[in-house]
């Protein structure tokens, strides 16, 4: 049994006449102790799908799924109250901008203690001791004095450490980190990622790492899910997927990174942008930007195929040498 098992999750926004699929039939499993990276450009549906797992999509957004199971328990049929007992406790989330996700009106200590109070209770003294231990665990210097600090008194890296302390306060089994280091400097990013991976190993948590930084995923994750315009286009083990990408989009993303163009003057850029709500093409969503697209790609939409551990959504997946079968 997987820790998290998502089958054909879709999220719709918009009205009945003009529905817009922000997330289109994605499937995802996470095992305990596994780091799964979700990569994609902005507008690819990475964050919306994680919010859907957390149950944080509000009206008019509509979430549908064939299965959305945590430890074998179906989350969609649970009542609001029962579901809230799981989210925030067993499934926790860290958001992108630490500075704006903390409440500016309360001290750091109060905010961590609130999470503990809701899910675990205990006396104020116990909660305080627990919060202090958490701050120590995430490597905040002088945790005693930081307990009474307000978020504006902390730097970006410190705020993100506090967010992590809040997220792990109730010993979650699954942690979703949505762009946890995007707003931070590289040296601080390295510190935060190392901290997250240490905690993940210690507690044998499942970790979903959502980011647009391919290199970060390559270093941190075990498995990777590549998303494009709301769909999963490729999944696989991290070393395989980055060494021999099978979907043209994954290949194009890798090619457009400066790292892949060492010795060349120009970068091999992918033309165009991710299609928005009103300009989704027919057929394969990548077809207008894909250098290998054929007439079939422009009229017919591909479905994911291949073995379960290495799925590709493409009619003409790339071979190991980087060319298509077509």
């Amino acid at each position, binding site marked *: 049994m997987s820790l998290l098992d998502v089958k054909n999750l879709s999220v719709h926004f918009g009205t009945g006449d003009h529905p817009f699929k922000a997330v289109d039939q994605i499937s995802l499993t996470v095992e305990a102790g596994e780091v799964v990276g979700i990569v994609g450009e902005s507008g690819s549906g990475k964050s919306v799908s994680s919010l859907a797992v957390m149950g944080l999509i509000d009206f008019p957004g509509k979430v549908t799924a064939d299965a959305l199971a945590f430890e074998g328990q179906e989350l969609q049929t649970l009542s609001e109250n029962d579901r809230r007992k799981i989210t925030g406790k067993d499934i926790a989330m860290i958001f992108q901008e630490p500075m704006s996700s903390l409440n500016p009106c309360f001290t750091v200590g109060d905010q961590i203690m609130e999470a503990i109070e809701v899910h675990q209770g205990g006396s104020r003294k116990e909660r305080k001791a627990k919060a202090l231990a958490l701050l120590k665990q995430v490597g905040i210097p002088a945790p005693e004095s930081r307990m009474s600090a307000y978020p504006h008194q902390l*730097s970006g890296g410190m705020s993100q450490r506090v967010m992590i302390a809040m997220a792990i306060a109730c010993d979650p089994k699954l942690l979703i980190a949505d762009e946890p280091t995007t707003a931070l400097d590289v040296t*601080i990013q390295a510190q935060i990622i190392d901290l997250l991976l240490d905690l993940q190993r210690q507690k044998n948590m499942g970790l979903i790492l959502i980011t647009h930084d391919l290199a970060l995923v*390559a270093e941190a994750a075990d498995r990777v899910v590549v998303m494009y315009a709301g769909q999963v286009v490729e999944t696989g083990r991290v070393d395989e997927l980055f060494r021999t990408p099978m979907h043209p989009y994954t290949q194009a993303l890798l090619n457009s990174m400066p790292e892949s163009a060492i010795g060349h003057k120009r970068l091999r850029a992918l033309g165009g942008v991710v299609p928005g709500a009103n300009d989704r093409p027919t057929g394969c969503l990548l077809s207008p930007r894909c250098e290998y697209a054929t007439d079939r790609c422009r009229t017919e939409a591909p479905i994911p195929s291949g073995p379960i551990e290495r799925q590709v959504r493409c009619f003409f997946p790339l071979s190991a040498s980087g060319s298509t079968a077509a």
Partner: protein
Amino acid sequence: MTAVLQATDLKKHYAVTQGFLKPKASVKALDGVSFTLHAAKTLAVVGESGCGKSTLAKLLTLIETPTEGGLHFDGEFKDVHQPAVVKSLRRQIQIIFQNPYGSLNPRKKIGSILEEPLIINTDLSAAERKEKALEMLQKVGLRPEHYSRYPHMFSGGQRQRIAIARGLMLNPKVLIADEPVSALDVSVQAQVLNLLMDLQEELKLAYIFISHDLSIVEHIADEVLVMYLGKVVEYADKETLFTAPKHPYTRALLSSTPRIHPEQRIERIQLKGEMPSPIDPPTGCAFHTRCQFVNDRCKQETPELITTDGAQIACHAVQEARLPYL
């Protein structure tokens, strides 16, 4: 090779109030930066937030007046306290900003955004201005019909193209790019970097490229200036810096940059803590609080920038040959 822009010992100190009746403190945002920029070359400035990168950009574009230090433009000394000199320099040194969503006026059409510099600085007629704007639109890869559209109708990558076009309207010799691609997606980032390189070749522009992403710097730069707390710690050409980084801070930055391919990864040097506040900088070498090669001399004596093996480095450990080779 002619030097287009030469900065000598540039300093910018800001006075800050510390509280009622307390004496004003001085923040040394930039403390003695010198460099030489050649035509059609790119000088990259790297460092963490708060190291003075953007202050340097503000001084060079004369948005702020330096507290001390001088500028030579085209081999001539320029007195930056004379309004006429400032005005002529501003035409020659243009800037593009980090966030293209904030740097374009939403109430103006692209045409008038591009023509504004011409209205202020030249006496061209309306028809001539329009012709120049259309020409520039084409040069940055946009279409003539974009002339009468508003900024909100464009994607991030297109907006950054507009910002670049605006920067080039007065045919400057130097373009300062302050994190020009950090707000963009990977595939779009590659498009904009390619455009910048094409324009450099065509117009023989000199770039000052401010960035915190070392993989981009490695691709685009000719020379690199590494800054820490308002001071230059290493100044070298790209090959020297990336193959044999010497300063411990440069090494730490390089090792913190995530890489896709495992063979390009180097052993992580974990920096402890964060950059100290520039209001209260450490004594001696500013980096000594986070450096693993620190000794008593580093804590007391500020290192000078000394040329060693083709690179300028400010580090006692390097001068004393105390550093292990990478």
